[in-house]
């Protein structure tokens, strides 16, 4: 039976794209194994897809208490020098001039056609110092893209991906757990702001960001402290201490959490061929900020009218949509599912899909081709899940 698993492209349990001995490992590889993590190939990285609790419990615990995620595979690129802000403003869609020291924003690197090279976070450490945090599987591509556009800018670019581990503490208890390990007053850090400080004595960047739809923090530190921080966070979070305790959470839960929260995953909702305006990222596409790579193409596409849009849907019929399934509207093949899954917290089968703009309306009925059966679904607002504040 397992020979026929037909799921998504990069968190597939049975996928084996890279020979085992060539897989990259984070500094927490052994820690994951010790916790019973089921290791898989994720874009060339050996990562835990889940631990012994399983994806549903890891997902639920992150919504109700706290989950701990190893995201050390993400890439970090420093941009330093007098042209740091104008340079990053020219290669990304969001307006970097609006950031102040200690603030971060979500953005996209775009190509000349407006397609998304990658989505990323931009952190402003100072007027001449920015940190770009990019996806793991695209770090090499991004580095090549960014360095090729340096031209004569007065900047120094550093690919510091190997210099950091990154650990995400997410969930309603994230703040109180992390607060037990640092003197930094965490409640003073606003959402999408960050600071530097010590966590369990270790120098770290503490960022109030995440990919789960919950409150939480992402901690960047030198890789030699990864195990210390990981174990200390689990201990402080009450791992193993019952249903309110923190759980380590794998890639599968990370994916269902971000999907419930309506967030994009590169390679699914975003790609070199997809422009941010069709993927619901108009809010980070600042066409008025001045020139940037892809701006003219994006402005022209907007002027002509965006032909397809990313929508959220939930299944009406019994059945589960999966990545890559076809969407039918009025008996015509009208689009494609980019991400879909059972949603553990909402207990519905949900997904994101591209459909023609004329049909991208809340309540519109669509059909999803589930292995030859056309099952009914309807377009619903995103995010599917929004935490109470």
């Amino acid at each position, binding site marked *: 039976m397992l020979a026929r698993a*037909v799921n998504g492209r990069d968190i597939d349990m049975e996928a084996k794209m890279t020979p085992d001995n060539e897989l990259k490992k984070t500094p927490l590889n052994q820690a994951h194994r010790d916790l019973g993590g089921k290791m898989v190939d994720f874009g060339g990285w050996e990562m835990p897809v889940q631990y012994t609790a*399983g*994806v549903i419990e890891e997902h639920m615990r992150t919504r109700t208490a706290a989950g701990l995620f190893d995201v050390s595979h993400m890439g970090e690129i420093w941009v330093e020098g007098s042209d740091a802000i104008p340079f990053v403003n020219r290669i990304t869609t969001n307006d970097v001039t609006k950031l102040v020291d200690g603030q971060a924003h979500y953005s996209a690197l775009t190509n000349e056609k407006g397609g998304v090279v990658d989505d990323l976070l931009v952190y402003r450490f100072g007027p001449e110092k920015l940190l770009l945090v990019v996806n793991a599987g695209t770090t090499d591509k991004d580095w090549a893209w960014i360095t090729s556009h340096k031209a004569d800018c007065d900047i120094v670019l550093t690919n510091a991906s190997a210099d950091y581990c990154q650990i995400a503490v997410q969930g309603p208890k994230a703040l109180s757990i992390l607060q037990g390990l640092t003197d930094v007053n965490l409640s003073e850090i606003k959402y999408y702001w960050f600071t530097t400080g010590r966590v369990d004595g270790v120098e770290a960047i503490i960022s109030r960001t995440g990919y789960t739809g919950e409150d939480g923090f992402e901690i960047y530190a030198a890789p030699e402290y990864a195990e210390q921080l990981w174990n200390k966070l689990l201990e402080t979070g009450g791992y193993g201490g019952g249903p309110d305790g923190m759980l380590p959470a794998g890639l599968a839960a990370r994916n269902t959490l971000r999907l419930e929260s309506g967030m994009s995953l590169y390679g699914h909702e975003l790609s070199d061929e997809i422009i941010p305006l069709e993927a619901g990222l108009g809010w980070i596409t600042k066409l008025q900020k001045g020139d940037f790579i892809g701006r003219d193409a994006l402005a022209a596409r907007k002027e002509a009218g965006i032909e397809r849009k990313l929508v959220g849907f939930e299944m009406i019929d019994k059945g589960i949509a999966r990545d890559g399934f076809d969407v039918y509207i009025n008996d015509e093949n009208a689009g494609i599912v980019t991400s879909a899954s059972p949603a553990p917290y909402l207990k519905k089968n949900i997904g994101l899909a591209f459909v023609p703009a004329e049909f991208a309306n809340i309540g519109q009925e669509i059909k999803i081709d589930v292995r030859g059966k056309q099952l009914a679904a309807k377009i619903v607002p995103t995010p599917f899940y929004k935490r109470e504040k």
Partner: protein
Amino acid sequence: MSNIPENLRYSKDHEWVLVDGETASIGITDYAQNSLGDVVYIDLPRVGDKFGVHESFGSVESVKAVSEIFTPVAGEVTEVNDGLNDTPEKVNSDPYGDAWFMKVKMENPGEVDAMLSAVEYEEYLSSQG
């Protein structure tokens, strides 16, 4: 280590069969449920459906993946475990007990002999790494 009861026969597709006279109960193995992760949905056939050997008779869906399930033996479906519609998680917690998928009246009970014994299945799993 996977649980592999000695009284069952196994397929290389990770189904098990329990033989009672001409009737075979069919389910998926502990190894299979563990590989799939949390099972959330099972698509089962109907009583009266007839299947040849190695035919797809339904699917098992976990949060992350969907897998087809294949008949290790040919026959006519005499009973399906409808209870799994409400409690698919039993496939994870009790794959050899409550979580049988269907019972078939075998066309050719000799097909069971071609299946793996518990020892052979265990060897097969270790050979798969």
